C-alpha cells in the first residue's frame, strides 16, 4: 500500500477514462491527482446539442470516501434550472448522497443525463442571490434538494 488510496483510485480512473470515455466526455487536463478538467459535450437530440462545456473536479486526500468538488468552469456554463451561473451544480450525489462507488465517469454520466432531460433552458430562479453569496466551494453550501423534474 505504498500509494495513498486516492492516488491509487485516481490512476485507475484516469486510465479508464482515457481508454473508455463515456460518450461526449474528454480529458482536457489531468496532470495530477488534485484537479482535473474534463470536456462535456451536449448530447445529440437535446437542448444542449452542439454545445461544449468544461467541468472541474477537485479531489481531497479523502477521495473517494469524500466527494470531489465538481463545478462547471469556462465561458460556457450550461443554462439549466439546477446549474448556477457561477458553475455550481445542484446534484445530490455530489453532496450528501455521495458514495465512494461513484466515479468521475459516473458523475459525468449523471450530469449528462441531467442536461439531457432538461426541457427549458433557464437559470435557477434564485440564481442572482445565490451567486452573490455563495462560497467558492459548492460543498460549503447547504443544499436543499427539491425535486427531480426540470
Amino acid at each position: 500500500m505504498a500509494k495513498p488510496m486516492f492516488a491509487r483510485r485516481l490512476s485507475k480512473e484516469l486510465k479508464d477514462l482515457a481508454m473508455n470515455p463515456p460518450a461526449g466526455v474528454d480529458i482536457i487536463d489531468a496532470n495530477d491527482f488534485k484537479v482535473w478538467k474534463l470536456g462535456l459535450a451536449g448530447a445529440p437530440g437535446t437542448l444542449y446539442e452542439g454545445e461544449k462545456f468544461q467541468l472541474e473536479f477537485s479531489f481531497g486526500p479523502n477521495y473517494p470516501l469524500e466527494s470531489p468538488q465538481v463545478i462547471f468552469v469556462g465561458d460556457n456554463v450550461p443554462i439549466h434550472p439546477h446549474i448556477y451561473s457561477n458553475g455550481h451544480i445542484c446534484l445530490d450525489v455530489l453532496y450528501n448522497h455521495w458514495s465512494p462507488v461513484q466515479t468521475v465517469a459516473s458523475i459525468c454520466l449523471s450530469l449528462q443525463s441531467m442536461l439531457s432531460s432538461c426541457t427549458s433552458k433557464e437559470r435557477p430562479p434564485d440564481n442572482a442571490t445565490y451567486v452573490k453569496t455563495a462560497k467558492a466551494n459548492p460543498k460549503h453550501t447547504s443544499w436543499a434538494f427539491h425535486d427531480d423534474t426540470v
Partner: protein
Amino acid sequence: MHQPTSTPGSLAPTAATPPPTDASTAVPPIGQQVIPSGATPQQNQDEVQLTDEQILSQMQAIKDEEANAHPLVDVSVDLTELAMEYENGSAAFRNKIMNLADTHDRMRRSRGDGNCFYRAFAFAWFERVMLAKGKPELHTNAVKVIEESKDLLIAAQFELLAFEDFYLVTLETLQNVVHFTPEELLSTFQNDEVSNSIVMHFRLVASAFLKTHQEDYAPFLEFGQTMEEYCSMHVEAMGRESEEMMLIALTKATHVSIEVAYLSGNENADQVNFLPFLPDTAPYMPPLVLLYRPGHYDILYRKSHCLEGVV
C-alpha cells in the same frame, strides 16, 4: 443530528423559500438519489445565521473532538465501566447491566460516527479469527467469504474499479490477521484509511446482498422506494446508520451469526433482550455479540466464548 428541513416541491419562479428557523443543514426527502434533482440553496433573510464556513468549522471541531476522545475502535474494557456510565441512571439500566455481567465480562467501544455497526462487526469477526488458534477453518472460511464477496458485488453491478481498493484492503487485512498481535489488529482498525476501507467494503457487501435478494427485502421498504434508492442512500454512503435490514444482509452474506443485546430503559424487564441474526447455513462459530443502545453499537465479550488475549 440533521433534521429534514426541505420541502419537496417544484421550483417556483420566485425567490427561494426561506427554510425553517433552525435550518443549518439540508437533508433531502426520502426517495431521491442518483437521478439529478433540483434544489435551491437555503436562504434566510430574517435572522442572523452562521455562514456555511462557520457551520463547517464547527462541525469539523466536533468531529476532531470526537476523534480525540474516541478512537475508531477502542481498547476493550471491563463491563464495570458500562455500569459506571449508568451509576446515576435508572434502575432499569443498572439491573440489566448487572445481569448482563453474569454472562459477559468485557466490552469494546466503536466510534459513534454512523459506521459503528459495520466497524464493530468487522473487528469482532477478524478478532475472533485471529484468536482462534487451533481452528484454522475460521480463517479459511472468512477468507473464502471475502474472496467470494467480489463476485457478489459484481453480480450487484458495482464497478470493479470503484470497489476494488476497499475489497483488497479488507482481504489483505483478513489474510494477515492470523499473524497479527492483538495490538496490531487494534492499530489496524484505528488507522483511518484501512478501517474506513473495511467499513466501506462491508457496506457494499450488505448493499449487494440486498440488491441481489430484492424479492425478499423490497417489501420492507417505504412505499415507492426502490432497493437501488434505499441502498444508495442508507447503505452505500459512509456515516449512514444501519438498520436491522443491514444486520440481516451482512449475516447472510458472510455466514457469520450475530447476537445483539438490546440495552433499553424498559422498566418492565431486568434482563437485556438478545436478538439473534442467523445465516441460512449452520453457524460454524459462536455468534459475534454486539451491544446496542439506541443509535449505537459496541462489541460485547461473552464469558463462555473464552477469548484469550483480548486487548
